[in-house]
């Protein structure tokens, strides 16, 4: 092994998985570095759990190779892989106390009594639940169970921590709290982590890198900002957050800047794009609601003026709909930067930076 390779904790090489005729995971390749936090993000049924189960050893890939710490893992049963895993349903042993649950993996490893005691105490302190050690799982709240499940996975000091939607069974507030907790834990112990979620906020806030999956295919692998700002596909862009989609035709390409005339009668200038475009090409233009500013009508360097159709106040921001030409644009307004009165019916201007405009080629049948 070269020194470069030894920093790679997990490697998937062209992994493929079929159930009967359905290809559920297609040609999945990924390298995860030591200490990295990688998320698998994608809609329901895209193959996230299936991929995680192959890494854990509950499923065997039909094709491709899996390496953990440089060792080929195909055919190695889960109990020999030395991994930590947290399941969506917590999966604490109901007939064992919290302390016994946490100690389970250590007992299997024939760790001495005193050391087990010591390590259980340390990990319960780490998840801030030292006082529940003698309770049974059913005497814990959902959030506490999840923390204990994390403690049980971490106590064996796994080479890799796998988390399958660990927060999805919790209510919104607790989710956020545990998300921060996960982040703190990862910073504190630095265990290599693969996190499965269909929640883009979780993925964006926690990850060093995100793997966006769709129908078993890797759509993009990148840092949260890359995924957010330079999506490789329309799917990635629309999955990661709300957006406005306008169809149109390229009218000019000059010095990396692309000008599009939309079907609704807007002229949109866009900054540099990941892919080249030619004049006359049918395209889709994407602008995120939070990238659009509402201004006084009239002055619109890159944008247009229109009529405010609806404004709903949501606390931290106001969600508006503005009719510009034939388009209905959603706009997210932070109240800080707006001294406007938002009354439906009034005329407002919409503007945006050309760098915040994303252009994707339209599918053939749409042109």
């Amino acid at each position, binding site marked *: 092994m070269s020194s470069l390779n030894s920093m790679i904790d997990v490697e998937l090489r062209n992994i493929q998985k079929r159930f009967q005729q359905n290809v559920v995971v297609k040609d999945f390749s990924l390298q995860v570095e030591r200490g990295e936090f990688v998320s698998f993000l994608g809609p329901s049924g895209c193959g996230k759990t299936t991929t995680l189960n192959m890494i*854990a*050893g*509950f499923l065997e890939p039909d094709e491709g190779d899996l390496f953990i710490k440089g060792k080929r893992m195909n055919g190695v*049963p*889960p*109990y*020999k*892989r*030395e*991994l*930590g*895993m947290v*399941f969506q*349903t917590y*999966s*604490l*042993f*109901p*007939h064992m106390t919290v302390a016994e649950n946490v100690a*389970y*993996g250590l007992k*299997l*490893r024939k760790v001495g009594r005193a050391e087990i005691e010591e390590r259980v105490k340390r990990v319960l302190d780490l998840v801030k639940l030292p006082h529940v050690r003698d309770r*049974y799982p059913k005497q814990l709240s959902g959030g506490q169970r999840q923390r204990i499940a994390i403690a*049980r*996975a971490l106590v*064996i000091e796994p080479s890799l921590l*796998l988390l399958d939607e660990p927060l999805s069974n919790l209510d919104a507030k607790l989710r956020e709290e545990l998300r921060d907790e996960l982040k703190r834990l990862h910073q504190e112990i630095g265990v290599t982590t693969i996190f499965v979620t269909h929640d883009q906020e979780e993925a964006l806030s926690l990850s060093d890198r995100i793997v966006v999956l769709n129908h078993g295919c890797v759509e993009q692998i990148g840092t949260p900002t890359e995924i957010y700002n330079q999506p490789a596909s329309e799917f990635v862009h629309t999955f990661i957050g709300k957006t406005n989609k306008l169809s149109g035709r390229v009218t000019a390409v000059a010095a990396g800047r692309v000008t599009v005339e939309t079907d609704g009668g807007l002229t949109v200038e866009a900054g540099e794009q990941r892919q080249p475009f030619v004049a006359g090409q049918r395209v889709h233009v994407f602008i995120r609601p939070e990238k659009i500013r509402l201004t006084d009508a009239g002055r619109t360097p890159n944008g247009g003026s229109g009529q405010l159709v609806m404004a709903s106040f949501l606390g931290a921001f106001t969600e508006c709909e503005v009719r510009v030409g034939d388009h209905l644009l959603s706009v997210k307004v932070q109240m800080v930067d707006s001294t406007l009165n938002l009354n439906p019916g009034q005329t407002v201007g919409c503007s945006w930076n050309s760098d915040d405009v994303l252009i994707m080629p339209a599918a053939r049948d749409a042109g």
Partner: protein
Amino acid sequence: MNRRLSILLLIAPSMAVLLGVFLIPMLLMFLLSLQDEAEQFSLANYLLLVQDPYYLELLWRTIRVSLWTVLCTLLLGFPVAMFMANASGRVRGIVAVLILAPHLISVVIRNFGWVVILGEKGWINETLLWLGLIDKPLRLLYNELGVVIGLTDAFIAYMVLAIATSLYGIDTSLYKAAAILGASRIRTFFSVTLPLSLPGVVAGITLVFSLSMSAFVTPALMGGSSVKVIPVIAYEQIMSTLNWPLGAALAFLLLGSSILLVSLFARLVETKRYKEVFTA
């Protein structure tokens, strides 16, 4: 108030039936067991039962046969229950039907089936002789082994279904959790599957034990004259010897010892942990 009344009305018919066909006859039987031959009140029957070594051996034999039956149904039934728990709904249904189907046939006929199979000229002995593994037929009938085989066949369905029901309730992700923590399949069985199936095991043991203690037909047919158990002797006292009071006393000895042993077992199993884990 209204609710109470309607509940009372709803259970009234079954209560009346229970009272009429169960409690009152029981009471009459009990009074009968407290009579001597002159129809005077006396404890003589019970004193005889606890002092005569013949009856003590009889009691112990009945318990022994029942315990062996419990052990056999448990060891043979657990794997079947595990198979059912791991199978799809369809396969579960098929297996349940296969297990219960023999109960559509009278236990008398099933026991005679065993007599044919286990007898000196039965196919088990014939096969073993032919293979040269034995040189004279094994005695598989008309001894305790025969009775245990018959009772195991008669009651294994209860054990399987009781255990399977509690296995169905185990979240299968617990097996994954155990595996990823480093437990082999055998370790997972002993540390997760078995402890969590305990309520089913306890129910199965209690059921099969009580049924075996009071079984009459199978010991009578497959035990012959050498393995007499309490129900068989009680029957003889009442039907042949016409000593009804002693027969009644035997019945109550059986009932009393069954209740005592079953509650002792429950006491033993239901530790503090068991209660905390398995009661809501």
